[in-house]
């Protein structure tokens, strides 16, 4: 059950007062500015730090100087971070609304682990090497685990604990499988140990173009679901009384989350907690209306992901800390804080 104290979306009950709407729009604008700053920082910071004019030069007057090459290298990584971050944030928001569960996160529910296991299987046993080849495996794995966790967690009667446990247990089983693969095949270990932590470092132009169609489709679908999901959040009976088609909304929401997580995982490995932290922060800013939460999450999640990526490049210089590790180290404490803050009777 949703444990938010005021689960009724206010905007559905009565139109928000104009000042509030203006404040939200302004907030969204500020978030976009933050996103641009994060993207610029992601291009400028690294083993070779660039000045703002070097970044400008590389972006708009590319003449092939050393600085321009660095910008080129980092540009795709930044774009992938933008796309993957938005995907994970949207997926997290959709999952939290769908399961009416404040602790839902693609990583925590094992969906990323499902995608990883499928990708590793594809690479090791089916010899699939291209991203467009294994992104389908990622979808398959994400969908299978998503459905399984939802079913095992108790479907409609799911509680946060049940879902988290089912997700963690399945992740543990899949993790064991990944380890077995890595033990049997040493060359798999060499390739996989970097991919399985979640990293943006290997992004290229082709990575981005290959996952872009999937991410765009998932994003549009998720944004279109804002209104029906608002109804789902109010509980089955109310939603039905309001004329919502519950089964269709649930199926489409699951599809959106699967496509978004699967594509993001295929492109940069399993990244945890982005989908958990950002929707929570956003919800406290915007209130419970998903028509605001989703755009905010889509803009602010990449800020977090790019920020984590930049931090990872600074703290371990000249080497770098993979972004999946930074988000887990940041997100774990947030998760624990959330768990502690909730009233125990509901956990």
């Amino acid at each position, binding site marked *: 059950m949703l444990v938010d104290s005021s689960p009724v979306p206010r905007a559905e009950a009565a139109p928000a007062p104009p000042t509030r709407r203006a404040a939200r729009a302004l907030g969204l604008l500020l978030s976009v500015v933050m996103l641009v700053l994060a993207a610029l920082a992601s291009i400028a910071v690294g083993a070779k730090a660039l000045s703002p004019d070097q970044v400008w030069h590389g972006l708009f007057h590319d003449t092939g100087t050393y600085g321009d090459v660095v910008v080129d290298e980092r540009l795709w990584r930044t774009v992938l971070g933008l796309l993957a971050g938005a995907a994970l944030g949207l997926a997290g928001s959709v999952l939290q609304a769908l399961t009416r569960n404040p602790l839902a996160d693609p990583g925590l529910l094992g969906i990323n682990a499902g995608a990883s296991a499928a990708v590793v299987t594809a690479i090791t046993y089916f010899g699939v090497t291209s991203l467009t080849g294994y992104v389908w495996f990622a979808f398959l794995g994400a969908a299978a685990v998503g459905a399984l966790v939802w079913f095992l967690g108790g479907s409609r009667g799911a509680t*946060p604990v049940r879902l988290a446990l089912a997700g963690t*247990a399945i992740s543990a089983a899949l993790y064991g499988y990944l380890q077995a693969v890595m033990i049997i095949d040493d060359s798999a270990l060499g390739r996989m*140990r970097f991919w399985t*932590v979640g990293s943006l470092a290997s992004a290229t132009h082709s990575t981005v173009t290959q996952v872009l169609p999937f991410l765009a489709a998932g994003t549009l679908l998720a944004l279109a679901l804002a209104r029906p999901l608002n109804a789902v959040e109010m509980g089955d009976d109310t939603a039905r009384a309001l004329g919502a088609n519950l089964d269709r909304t649930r199926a489409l929401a699951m599809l959106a989350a699967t496509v978004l997580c699967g594509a993001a995982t295929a492109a940069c490995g399993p990244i945890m907690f982005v989908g958990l932290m950002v929707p929570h922060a956003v919800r406290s800013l915007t209130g419970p209306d998903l028509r605001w939460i989703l755009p905010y999450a889509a803009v602010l999640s990449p800020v977090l992901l790019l920020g984590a990526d930049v931090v990872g490049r600074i703290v371990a210089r000249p080497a770098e800390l993979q972004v999946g590790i930074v988000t887990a180290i940041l997100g*774990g404490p947030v998760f*624990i804080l959330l768990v502690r803050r909730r009233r*125990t009777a509901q956990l």
Partner: protein
Amino acid sequence: MKTRSRSRALRTPGGLSLRLDLRAVVVVGLFLATALAAGVALIGTGDAHIPAADVLRTLAGNGTAYQDFIVNELRLPRVLVGLLVGASLGLGGALFQAVSRNPLGSPDVLGLSQGSTAGALVVIVLMSGSATQVTAGALIGGLVTGLAIYLLAWKQGVHGYRMVLVGIGVSAIVTAVNGYLLTKADLVDAARAVVWMTGSLGGRDWDQVWPLLTLCAVLVPLVLAHARGLRMMEMGDDTAAALGVRVQRVRLVLMVCAVLLTAAATAAAGPVSFVALTAPQLARRLTRSPGPNLVPSLCMGAALLVTADWASQRAFGADQLPVGVVTGVLGGGYLLWLLVTERRAGRI
């Protein structure tokens, strides 16, 4: 589950009485027999095959010098480590599941194994330490993680579900750290680390047996002495408190014991996955008795681990596949089945 109880009461002339569940006693006997039989078979298995009769004769001290060396120096310690690790994991898992009141609240899920792994990886990757140092690192890692989970879950007492969720969070953080350490390592260290992380009994000698045996000798009686309180706590904290159990104290003592048992077992053999999760569940199903089933879980864990190691040795050849892979695959399948059936019964 039948409502009629098969248990008998034993009464002594002095007025003491003891409830005795015949089925549980028989099952425990069977587990022990299985564990020992698998142990003897495991001693006989390997590059130099030794028939079971010769193994028993050598263990009694009447073998040839050659058999004596192989059995007593090479393979007996390995089997003993297997038995002790299995027993510790089984008991530790039963305690965790009873305290969290959830069949999934086992050390694998709560992040203790990952904590031990982190400790071991630090030693392997950052210090290139010896086997003994790896063991120490794993022990420290497990204990620190257990302490962290307990403290973070503390809020006017530790509640089972909160502990599970905090454990999941801690586990995610530690897993990320492990992934980082693994990417930092060169390929040789990484391969060594992955084998350690899977859990293996290969190359274990008497140095691992003695500390583990000492720890078990101290902790097992301590745990069993508190088992009565634990049985009450399964009815809920309030009921248990009303019946005179000092809930938080019993929980603290048992958690400390469970963490020590798990950390020591993990330090000795690596994080052998799913034994702590499956042993108590299988034991509970076979004894069909309510309550934490501590002794059956202990014996089941020992039987399970040694049998799995024997199966791995027979099926894939000596030391080809670490035992952790076998328990991981079998345990993963069992876990799925468990999730489905427990869900149907509404117990998770």
